């Protein structure tokens, strides 16, 4: 096949069901990721492409154009099928195995890119000042840390929306809970860098006590001068008993919360806490176990 300079051989997304071997000349392959046309490679003499289109009927990842006059050998699917009929059965199995392995590798890469971009997205959202951020800004900033496509970025933002951390709008994102985004990022960062669970992740008992504190505070909380909300010890004990199926609150139960400075004992037989911080921490502990499943 002869291709004149400037002629297009095939378009990204089309499926020519053929394999190409460049005999002479140079072709350019460009791929488009949403808005950006990016030249990815040149095919010179001896180069080949289209193997997955031939074997698995996959569409091409790029548009191929002749940079100069080219001679190309085209192997259509009919020749491939006829040739394979003459080969031993095990060779077909090997080829199908290789194809399957290629699919698995692509899927693994997609998943890996998706998962590894998640902390970067949280980092960016926790650092950008505005509440409303354009999708373009997010994508441009994320490009500094990841090669995730705009579509995949939108999917990640969708996960954050499910957790009510952001709200997606037509061309922008409204950051609904920046403090929670920040502590979620810090929790993931701690796990990755120190290989241990962050102190933000609470035991079930701690979560139950804090939940009881929040409920009691909603009913009988008193706002203190330092901005914390306080409840009486009796109110906390009574609420814990109700919430934890009759379990009695002991000083030992409270120890870790006092140590972590999530609860503070006041001089007037009360317990106080930063109410917003508690709500975010409890929400973090609700969504954290769901993260891996959501991302996968």
């Amino acid at each position, binding site marked *: 096949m002869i291709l004149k300079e400037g002629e297009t051989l095939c378009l990204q997304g089309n499926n020519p069901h053929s394999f190409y071997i460049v005999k002479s000349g140079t072709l350019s392959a460009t791929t488009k990721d949403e808005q950006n046309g990016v030249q990815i490679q040149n095919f010179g003499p001896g180069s080949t*492409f289209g193997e997955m289109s031939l074997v698995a009927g996959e569409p091409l990842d790029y548009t191929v154009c002749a940079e100069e006059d080219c001679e190309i050998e085209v192997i259509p699917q009919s020749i491939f099928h006829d040739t394979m009929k003459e080969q031993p059965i095990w060779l077909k199995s*090997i080829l199908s195995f290789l194809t399957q392995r*290629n699919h698995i*590798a692509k899927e693994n890469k997609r998943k890996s890119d998706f998962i*590894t971009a998640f902390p970067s997205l949280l980092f960016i959202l926790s650092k950008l000042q505005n509440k409303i951020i354009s999708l373009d800004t997010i994508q441009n900033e994320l490009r500094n840390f990841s090669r995730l496509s705009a579509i995949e970025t939108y999917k990640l933002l969708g996960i954050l929306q499910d957790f009510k951390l952001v709200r997606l709008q037509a061309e922008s994102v409204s950051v609904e809970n920046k403090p929670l985004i920040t502590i979620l990022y810090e929790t993931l960062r701690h796990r990755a860098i120190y290989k241990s669970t962050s102190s933000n992740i609470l035991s079930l008992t701690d979560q139950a006590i804090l939940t009881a504190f929040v409920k009691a505070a909603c009913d009988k909380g008193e706002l203190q001068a330092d901005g914390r909300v306080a409840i009486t010890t009796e109110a906390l004990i009574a609420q814990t008993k109700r919430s934890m199926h009759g379990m009695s609150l002991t000083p030992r139960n409270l120890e870790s919360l006092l140590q972590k400075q999530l609860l503070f004992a006041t001089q007037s037989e009360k317990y106080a806490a930063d109410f917003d911080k508690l709500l975010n921490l409890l929400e973090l502990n609700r969504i954290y176990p769901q993260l891996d499943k959501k991302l996968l």
Partner: protein
Amino acid sequence: MITGNSQPRLIPPTQLRVKAGFVVSSPQDEDKKIILLNEGELLALDPKANNKVVFRILPGNLVGVGALLEREPVRYIFQATVDSTITIINDECMESELKSLPVWLLAVIRAISSKTRRINESIRSTKTDNPLASLASFCKYQSKDEILQSQTLLQEFAWLTKTPIPTATEALKTLIRRKMLVPQGDGTALTVPEPQLLGIFSDFLKSQDQDLPWHPFKLSLQQKKVLVWLSTLEADTAKDGSAWINLFKEHNLEISVADWLQMQQFEWFTEQENHLFALNIDKVNYYLLALQNEPNIKGTVK
């Protein structure tokens, strides 16, 4: 004796009947082979986990392709659970078969195989094209003059971008050389004196990577004068186009219509309703900071 037969000799695969419990392949085997199960069942056992069953191989399935074609290490022991029939394709057999294939089919097999290898490598590789630009972007988000531990900063950046620590360390040294990061104490800590400058530097590197002109360093002398004057104005000052041009004139800053259009392209002004143009002081300061640090950004530190 010369037979005149130039066709490569085909070495057929070996057919074997094996009893239940027979180990057909293990990581210790020196010869790599593909095993195709014709009848029966094989188990893949993990020798590193007390021979725990990892998966079952059913008739028609094959194992060992990666080991034979890609020289990947064999991870599992393959053992027959019942009397089974297998086909073994070893190195010689595969080589003779590949030699008999049409060149294009061989190229197809190699292309799929190498593409898969490249994808797998890219999963482990860094997620950024330019680690220096990426680190600069990361540092622009740090608080001005806050003491940061270099090692922690690098670890966090490496975690986000999968950049190897040595590469990230080199990028960090470059930012220190360009005075965009300042070492503190014994050098294990540092501060960011001007976070916005790191963002500007990152933008400059990215435009260079893409062979795009970078406007802050392409300004004419007159545009630079206008920029300095604009930086003294109140943010959000809004006027229509001709009022702005007249104002420049009053301050001995005569500009052409082309200059005016370019300034809009530079985003020094944002168009509002009623054809008013509001001064975008953030963008003006961005250009000014870039010009003030031109040698550092270009890498010709004074």
